[in-house]
């Protein structure tokens, strides 16, 4: 058994929690993978900030229509029952709490639910896009992420060290090692890889884990 889930497997796990008919916004990049792993028989309706509801997969190369793109500026297609709308209406959907789920990537997430996913500090060109709106935009804001950074530091922390995207907004975290809920300003462990002990997981986490009586096995297929 692998010692950690791949990005695709993390996305697969997050996809299992999306209900049939849910309205979902997937952040640019890694979170877009989630759309590939909808369980059979379930059909989420995907929203993109630039004014489309109910879009589908990318078109074949060479058949792109560049007036039909997602927030990441990638070409998309429409499913039957799609709708176009302008940016203010699009963010009315977001800010107004009409989305059921938003799934975002992150640099850090704190046990308080604080999220830092837009800026790695004062160097370079800052860019925020829709991130700060999306964290206030859904009934459920989830994060998918490696459990630690490439150089092994925890991404789940007591307090974010990077500039915040939002305060107290995240309720669930899917990592390469575990699934955790954020409740009462603590990470509550719901599932972990069978091959890792609670102590090992705590050692890779920058905040105290709350361990309930039952912790499920985090098992994802090869995808």
């Amino acid at each position: 058994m692998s010692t950690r889930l791949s990005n695709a497997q993390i996305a697969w796990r997050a996809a299992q929690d999306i209900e049939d008919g849910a309205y979902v916004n997937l952040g640019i990049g890694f979170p877009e993978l989630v759309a590939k792993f909808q369980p059979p028989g379930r059909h989420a309706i995907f929203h993109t900030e630039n004014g489309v509801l109910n879009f589908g997969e990318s078109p074949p190369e060479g058949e792109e229509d560049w007036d039909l793109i997602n927030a990441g500026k990638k070409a998309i297609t429409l499913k039957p029952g799609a709708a176009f709308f302008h940016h203010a209406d699009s963010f009315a959907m977001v800010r107004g709490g009409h989305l059921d789920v938003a799934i975002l990537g992150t640099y850090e997430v704190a046990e308080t639910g604080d999220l830092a996913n837009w800026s790695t500090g004062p160097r370079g060109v800052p860019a925020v896009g829709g991130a700060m709106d999306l964290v206030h935009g859904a009934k459920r804001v989830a994060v998918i992420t490696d459990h630690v950074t490439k150089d092994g530091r925890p991404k789940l922390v007591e307090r974010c060290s990077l500039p915040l995207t939002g305060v107290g907004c995240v309720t669930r975290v899917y990592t390469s090692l575990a699934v955790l809920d954020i409740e009462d300003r603590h990470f509550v462990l719901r599932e972990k890889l069978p091959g890792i002990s609670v102590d090992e997981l705590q050692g890779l986490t920058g905040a105290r884990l709350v361990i309930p009586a039952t912790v499920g096995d985090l098992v994802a297929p090869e995808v």
Partner: protein
Amino acid sequence: MDKTVPDLAAAVAGITDGMSLMVGGFGGSGAPIELIHALIDQFKATGSPGRLTIINNNAGNGRVGIAAMIDAGMVEKMICSFPRSADPRAFTEKYLGGEIGLELVPQGTLAERIRAGGSGIPAFYTPTSYGTDLAAGKPIAEFEGRHYVQERWLKADAALIKAELADLLGNLTYRKAARNFSPLMAAAAKLTIVQASRIVAPGEIDPEHVITPGIFVDRIVEVADPQQEEALMRDGVAYA
């Protein structure tokens, strides 16, 4: 996903005592008469829902629609801009008798408060009503040398909406000026209930022509030949 429900009774199920209810329409245009009457039927059969707060531009006309709800004794308070009409008896009598409350809101402020409610904007500033009795007690602020009144969002427990077309996912179009407050209310209510003249398959409404995207809609019921308030009044109908 299919948001249709089998009949009007199922469409209005779950609206309970004391709720706030947005009702689309401006005068008779866009008034969801069949949904309102289904709610009156439920009230007559069960005694509920009562003590409702109704949000609409007007306060009913004649003896049908919102006026019939008032006649039936279901309405505790109106939030509206213009509680007058060709035949305003239902509201007027209860208002002058102290039996019904009124929050009077300028029409554009009413629209913007509902739009704010659906858009996650808890408050905004408007020049409208500054210096008038309708600004009494509201915060005032100055921007660029001009005074503005702070207004708060308006949400509701449920909305009753009349559409022209609905697809199964809840994407809506409206007929002419029957659009008015309905797209705003559909977004500002927890439970949005739509009567549509025709229900179609997803894809039959051009995505460019959708006025209310389905994300704002919870239930759809088909009412093929909806009644028009003006025709009911001409025929002297009293529903309550």
